[in-house]
Each structure stands twice: as C-alpha cells, then as structure tokens.
C-alpha cells in the first residue's frame, strides 16, 4: 500500500480489526500451567511466616512460590533496589505479592490462592506523605533511614529580592489525586522454557522488553542471553507497563524455569488495579510574585509527591516536575524544593505525563489567578511572561537550536476556538440560566525524551534482502501507539522505496541491541532517529557499490521512486535489481544505526543545567457548561495545537492527541483511585471511572510542524504533551463558568449557590 492510499497507515491495523492480533492471553501453548498472585490483607506488617501447605495440597496445584524460591535476586529497581519479586521481610502496601500459586488451571490456582496463610505483625501504616516526612514517622524502609526517597531543587536568582520587586504575591495550595493507567489489557505474561537450548522465551504485555529481560535474568540468576523477550501486541501502556509488568514476567519466568513447563499468568482487573503502580498524587504549595505590569518576579514552591511503598521512578518523575515547575514562563528568581516520599500507599511510578500533569494543573491556574489580580487577561499575562526564541529557562537553559513555538501554539488555539469572543460570554456564576457556560485554556512546554534522567540511545537495523524486500527492526516498542508504522514510514521515506517493501521484524531482545524503554515520548524521536541514521548508512553502502556503474561520485547517487539513479534520472536501477546485484557483488545491504541523544547537563545542588536537548510546545482549550443545580459538567468542544516537529503519520499523531486529551479530561473530572486505611476500594472499571464516549466533546487537533534540527527526521514527540494540559484548561473553564476556583483534583462540584443580585460594579 502506498502511503497516500489511506489517511492513515498501520502495519498492525488489519490484524487488530479482524481479531487476529494475538495479545498475550491469546497465545496458546501445549501443556501450559497457570499462575496467580497471592496478596495479604495487611497494609504494613512484618512477615512472620507464609504458610503454603494447604494450598500446595489442593488437587491440581503444582507449586506455590515465595521469596524463598528465588534463585537470583529478589529485589530490584531501576533506581533503588527496593521492589520485591515477592514480599520477603515486610508487607509495605495492600498490593504486595507474598506468593504465586501455579496450577493446572486458572480456576484451581485462584481457589488455592485463598488457602495461603500469611502470619504477620501489623505495623502502624503511614498514609499521609507530609506525616511520613516527620522525624518520628514509622519507616517504610528501615534501611533507607527516612521516608524521603529523594529531593530536587531549583535555585535561581534571589527569591527574596524577587518578591520585594513584586506588587502582589499570590499564594495557594494545590492537591492532585492518585490515578490509574487503566490500560484495557491487564498485565499478562507467558514464559516458555525452550527445550532445545534452555533459553526462556518471554511473551508479555510490557512496554520495555529490555528491562523485563534484565529483571527476569537477575531474578533467575541467569545471563541476559538466556532470556529472550519477544515482542507481543500490547493493549495499552501509558507508562504503566514498566516495573509491575516486568515483575509479572519475572514471577512467571521463575515458575516456568523451576517447573520446566510453559506458564501463563494473566492478571484479573482487580489484581492489576491493586498491585500496579499509579500516577503520583502531589501536594504543591505555590507562591508567585507579580508586578502591576504583569511580570512574574519570583516563584517559590514546595512539591511533595507520594511515591507509595517503593521507589520505582519517583526521583525521575519528580525531577521533571522540578525542571518544569514554572511552566513555559521565564522567571528570574525561583526557589523550588521537591520531595519524593515513601508511604504505605499504592506504589506510584511512571504514567504518561511523568510529573507534568500535576504541575500544569497548578501553574496554569496560578497564571490566571495572577492575571486577575493584575487586572489583565490570562492570555495577555501569558504573553508577557512566556518563553520565546532565545529565552532562558528557570534552569538556565537557553532555548535555541529549535523553533520556540509557544506563542504559535497559543495563537493557533485562540483563533481556532474564537477564545476572546467566547470569554466574554462566560457566566462567572451569574445569570438566570441553569447551564453556566465557561471557556478555559492551558499551555505547556515539555522537555523531550529522558533528559538528564538517564542513558538515552537507540538502535535500528535495516537488513535489505536479495529480492529487494527489507527487514526493519528498531529498539523501541510498539505500545499500541503505532511506533512500528512510524518507523517503517521513516525507513521508506529515507530510502526512497515503496512502503510495501518493508516488513517490521517481530522484535526480540536477542536480536536488537538494548535501546532502553519506550517511555518519555521518546519512541519517534529516538527510534526514528536511529532508523534515519541506519538508512543513511545503508544508502552510502549502496552508493559505493553502484557509483561507477551510474557514472557519478558516491555522494551523487540519488534514491528515489523505488530505485537509485545518478546525476540524471536516465541511468536508473530499480531497488530490487540493485539488491540482487549487491548480493552478487558480495556486499551486504545491511546497516545498524545508532542515535544518541545530544548532551544534556544537570547540577543537582543548584538545579541548573541544560535539562533536555529539545522542547515541544502545546496549547489546549475547552468549552463547557456547569449545571447550577447538579454541578454536572458537560464538555462541549475542545481544541489542541501541538508542535510535533514533523508529523510522520499525521492521523496517528492526531490519535495520540485525542487520546491524551480524553485521559486528561478524566484526570480533571472523574478519575480517582480511592482507598480506605491504605486498602484500595476502586478495584475495577465500574468504580474506577474512565471517560466514556458521552463524557467527551468533539475535539479538534491542529498539528504545527517546525522540523527540529537535532532530530534526524525533524520529528519530536507527542504522547505525553497531549496528556498534560486539558485538566487545567477544564479548571480554568469551570472557574469562568462558576466564578469559583478549584485547587484539588478531580474537580467535584456540588450544587452552586443561586446567582447574587447583580448591582453596579458587578462584572
């Protein structure tokens, strides 16, 4: 199929729309055993013993595994090795797994799981992150010495001076809730011990085959080469199929290895919700100094993130919050203190947005509140303070080398939705109508990829065959976002060949070099970069082979219309023909491309540095009504504009934005993981409410393309930027509708007071 034949191209669409795509639970293996996790009713307790005898004696049960059975290392973690494959010394949250029951059928395993007895001494649970930071708080991890996982700071300028220059100081407290990724496919794994060479094949629903392989190998005490994680379609991840999903694979692999049979473990929704890590709930105290002229002179903020029972990636999530703690605004004097904290709540880790949705909820309301105090519009206030070409961020990074498109994104949304005109129609809680109208806006900038969070490089292999077909493999993972399709499109475009030549090879950790995890919206920029570089290397090999024949220098060989040619289009060799000839010349048309993220820098003591190698810019606005009697919010219409660098597969990029907006609407209005005394009560999709079709408005997306020079393809990222600003836009719209601000998520409105009699001087 040619790229232009349809609005949208995906290599996996046919399989998915016909039901033929095989997700993990759809895979069948002969002689397979079924494994299920065992939880306890404790929230914080010291384990005395785990009695598995009764479960083990049940008919059909093959084995019950606990920490004792782990031949390698039971503790792992990307930053701090505190996460257990099985709880060993203590139970630290309600979702801690104490054992796994392996049986001939899933029903038997589920039944037997109830027979496992956990004897433990309950300990006082620490459920409030502020209380957890106090010196006498019970410790979640005694050997860590405190419940503070990590701290970050920004120290820029002099905030005392900054506040002195201010005419107004605005000070508010904000709170955000715990939310669940709610990927439609729960965690799942199948592990198959390969009889021929003893390698353990792992199929699973996870977004990071390489870290899964690492966890499995470390847990089993075997070499990386003895574990092969094979790419399997995944029913959604959103950042959530990292640590927990890897642990599910590790436990399954352990059972398969010990029992010498294929083992499948598919999570029931309530297990998934109970155990899997969530988005961090935040508490933010924010002070902003502004002048009468509407300039921000200083920001002081204190951020406390509840990381739950284990570290996971809390230090990285809170780092992004810290770097972006002032949003896309230039502030000369900043003092930010950020704390990631252990509690006995559910673990918090990576989720689409990664520390920015919380902060944007704060900042994009703060700028509106400040504008109101100054007496100018929120838009004007933003214009006076926003980053522009050459601006210096609060961490001292000069924004150049790419187009700073903040104002472009803002203006695009303003004109598309006729913002100014509609702003004048907002009800502000007044009027006779029961449906109160409001419009709201929010914008952000976002550092691309991992930044100073970690090692950031990626590989791609292009292996052209003698008949002209092409095998492509890239070290990024298909999370459902269309990564493979984007990679294939980039490959075809770079090589100037027809798209139907390219087959994306089913990925395997035994083939492609470890390229890190597909998170941080790094798939397209890093994977696509590697593909482009591999294609360029392949082209130079081909050019060398044919330049003499084409009568030109190697640099003059051109790749177009599915073939190669010299200086004129006359001397042309078709691509398939060229590949056949290369085979005869004994030259491999094979290339490995490696894209390394450009240098970034960070000073942990001052919070200064070039945090990210490039940035993206986005803006979203929403119209809604609030019913005065019921408080019910109806979203009417939403608009988004995002600079994506270059849209490789435009309809897929739009899809990312629609989906991100929907998730952000859920964050703003509906979603909340609830617990009672640390025991989660929202354990399925009936009580945990994600947006349905009727909850969402018609959405309009505008793609802004400013190809980025540091990206080999010009493309940047979109997965997360799309997901971080609709909630604050909704908060601003609700304020414009009702005249009231909301400082906590999700926004819950009860009945509103009757309109006041509006005398003179009332707006």
């Amino acid at each position, binding site marked *: 199929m040619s790229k232009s034949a*349809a*609005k*949208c191209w*995906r290599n*996996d*669409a*046919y*399989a*998915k*729309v*016909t*039901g*033929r*795509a*095989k*997700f993990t*639970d*759809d895979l*069948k293996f002969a002689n397979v055993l079924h494994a299920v996790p065992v939880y306890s009713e404790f929230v914080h307790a010291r384990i005395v013993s785990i009695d598995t005898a009764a479960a083990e004696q049940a008919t059909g049960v093959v084995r019950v595994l606990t920490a004792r059975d782990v031949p390698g290392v039971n503790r792992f973690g990307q930053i701090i090795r505190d996460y257990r494959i099985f709880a060993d010394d203590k139970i630290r949250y309600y979702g801690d797994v104490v054992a796994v029951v392996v049986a001939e059928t899933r029903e038997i395993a589920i039944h037997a799981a109830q027979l496992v007895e956990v004897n433990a001494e309950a300990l006082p649970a620490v459920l409030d992150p502020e209380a957890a930071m106090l010196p006498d708080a019970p410790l979640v991890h005694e050997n860590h010495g405190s419940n503070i996982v990590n701290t970050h700071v920004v120290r820029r300028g002099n905030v005392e001076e900054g506040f002195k220059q201010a005419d107004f100081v605005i000070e508010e407290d904000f709170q955000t809730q715990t939310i669940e*990724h*709610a*990927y*439609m*496919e*729960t965690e799942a794994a199948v592990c198959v011990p390969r009889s021929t060479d003893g390698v353990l094949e792992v199929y699973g629903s996870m977004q990071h085959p390489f870290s899964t392989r690492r966890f499995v190998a470390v847990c089993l005490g075997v070499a990386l080469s003895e574990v092969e994680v094979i790419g399997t*379609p*995944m*029913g*959604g*991840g*959103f950042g959530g199929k990292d640590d927990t999903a890897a642990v599910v694979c590790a436990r399954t692999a352990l059972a398969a290895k010990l029992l010498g049979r294929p083992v499948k473990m598919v999570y*029931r*929704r309530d297990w998934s919700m109970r155990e899997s890590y969530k988005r961090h709930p935040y508490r933010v105290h924010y002070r902003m100094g502004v002048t009468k002229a509407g300039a921000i002179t200083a920001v002081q903020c204190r951020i406390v993130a509840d990381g739950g029972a284990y570290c996971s990636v809390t230090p990285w999530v809170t780092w992004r919050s810290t770097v972006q703690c002032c949003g896309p605004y230039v502030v000369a004097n900043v003092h930010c203190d950020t704390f990631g904290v252990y509690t006995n709540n559910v673990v918090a880790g990576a989720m689409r947005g990664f520390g920015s949705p919380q902060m944007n909820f704060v900042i994009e309301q703060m700028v509106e509140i400040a504008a109101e105090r100054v007496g100018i519009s929120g838009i004007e206030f933003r214009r006076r303070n926003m980053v522009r070409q050459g601006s210096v961020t609060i961490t001292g990074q000069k924004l150049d080398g790419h187009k700073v498109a903040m104002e472009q994104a803002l203006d695009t949304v303003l004109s598309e939705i006729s913002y100014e005109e509609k702003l004048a129609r907002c009800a502000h809680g007044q009027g006779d109508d029961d449906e109160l109208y409001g419009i709201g806006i929010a914008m952000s900038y976002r550092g691309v990829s991992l930044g100073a969070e970690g090692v950031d490089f990626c590989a791609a292999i292009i292996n052209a065959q003698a008949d002209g077909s092409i095998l492509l493999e890239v070290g990024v993972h298909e*999370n*459902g*976002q*269309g990564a493979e399709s984007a990679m294939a499109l980039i490959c075809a475009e770079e090589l100037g060949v027809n798209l139907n030549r390219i087959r994306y090879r089913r990925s395997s950790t035994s083939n492609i070099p470890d390229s890190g995890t597909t998170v941080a919206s790094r798939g397209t920029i890093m994977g696509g970069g590697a593909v482009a570089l591999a294609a360029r290397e392949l082209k130079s090999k081909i050019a060398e082979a044919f330049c003499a024949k084409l009568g030109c220098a190697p640099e003059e060989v051109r790749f177009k219309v599915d073939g190669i040619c010299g200086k004129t289009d006359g001397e042309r060799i078709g691509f398939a023909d060229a590949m056949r000839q290369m085979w005869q010349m004994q030259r491999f048309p094979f290339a490995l491309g490696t894209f390394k993220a450009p240098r970034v820098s960070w000073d942990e003591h001052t919070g200064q540095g070039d945090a990210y190698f490039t940035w993206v810019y986005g803006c979203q606005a929403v119209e809604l009504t609030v019913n005065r009697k019921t408080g019910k919010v109806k979203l009417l219409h939403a608009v988004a504009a995002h600079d994506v660098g270059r849209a490789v597969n435009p*309809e*897929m990029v*739009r*899809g990312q934005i*629609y*989906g*991100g*907006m*929907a*998730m952000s609407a859920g964050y703003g209005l509906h979603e909340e993981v609830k617990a009672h005394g640390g025991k989660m009560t929202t354990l*399925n*999709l*009936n009580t945990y409410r*994600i*947006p*349905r*079709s*009727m909850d*969402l408005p*018609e*959405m309009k997306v505008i793609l802004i393309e400013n190809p980025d020079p540091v990206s080999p393809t010009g493309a940047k990222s979109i997965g997360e930027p799309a997901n971080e600003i609709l909630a604050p836009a909704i908060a601003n719209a609700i304020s414009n509708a009702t005249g009231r601000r909301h400082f906590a998520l999700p926004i819950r409105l009860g009945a509103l007071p009757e309109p006041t009699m509006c005398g003179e001087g009332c707006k």
Partner: protein
Amino acid sequence: MQMKLQVNGREIDVPAAALDKRIVEFLREDLDLTGAKNACDIGACGACTVLVNEEPNRICIKRVKDFGGQRILTIEGLVAPDGTLHPLQQAFVDCGAIQCGYCTPGMVLTAHALLLKNPRPTREQIRHAIFKNLCRCTGYQQIIDAIEQAAPHYPARAPA
C-alpha cells in the same frame, strides 16, 4: 444433554461438559476465537462484546447454556471469507480508529449492530451507541469518524 449454537454462521454442537463454562472462555479457548477480550470480567468495559441475534452482548458474565439456539457473531465472522475487510472494518483502519486494538473487536461489533438498526446515525447517536465500550487510547474521536464514514455502506431503511 447437548446444545446447538450458531457461531459466525456455523452450527456448533456444544458438549454437555461445556454448558456451564463462561461463554467468553468457550469462544476463546474451545473455538479459538480470541477476538473477544476479557478486560474486566464484570460487564463494565465492553471488550468482550459479541453480537447475539444482532444485538451487542457483553458475554464475560454469561454461561454457554444461556445461548442455546442463538446466533452469535464474533469479530472473526465480520471479514469476508477471502479476507477482505467489511467496510466498517476498513473505515476503522482508514480513520486511525485503532491504536492498541484491545477495545477494537467489541467496538466494531457494537458499531455494526448500530448501523444495522440505524444506518444513518448522527454523531450524537453514535456516541450514545458506543457508550458502554471503553477505549483508553483514542478519545473515541476517530472511532466515531470511522462509524460515520462506514454508514453509507449500510442499506438505508425504507421509511416506515
């Protein structure tokens, strides 16, 4: 005692031992029709939706014996025998309505039932029809576009 069931136009003799099975497991395991997904087990998400006598049915909470003599259509039965996509499926592909694809089988079948009954729905009616099918990836926008785009392929009903 055994029972008959029609699945994707094929008569199936259900062995007595399977009558008490959950039908979603019977389809997925015994018939290897894995298009219907199990995502909540309590009837809350729509991932397991199949059509029973052309009506969407969330089957994760039901038993095989509840379906004696009924006509079941799963996603595997919508595609033509030669593999050509049904126009509704093609529209899902063309409109970018598929991301992870986990909700897709249930969503397509729910939309199919709607268009059989109401071949010229408004966007609001489409939203209403897919209300019980959760999708976490797409925000539903391109799904609604796809259903709208496929509608003309369904015969308009003669005005009553």
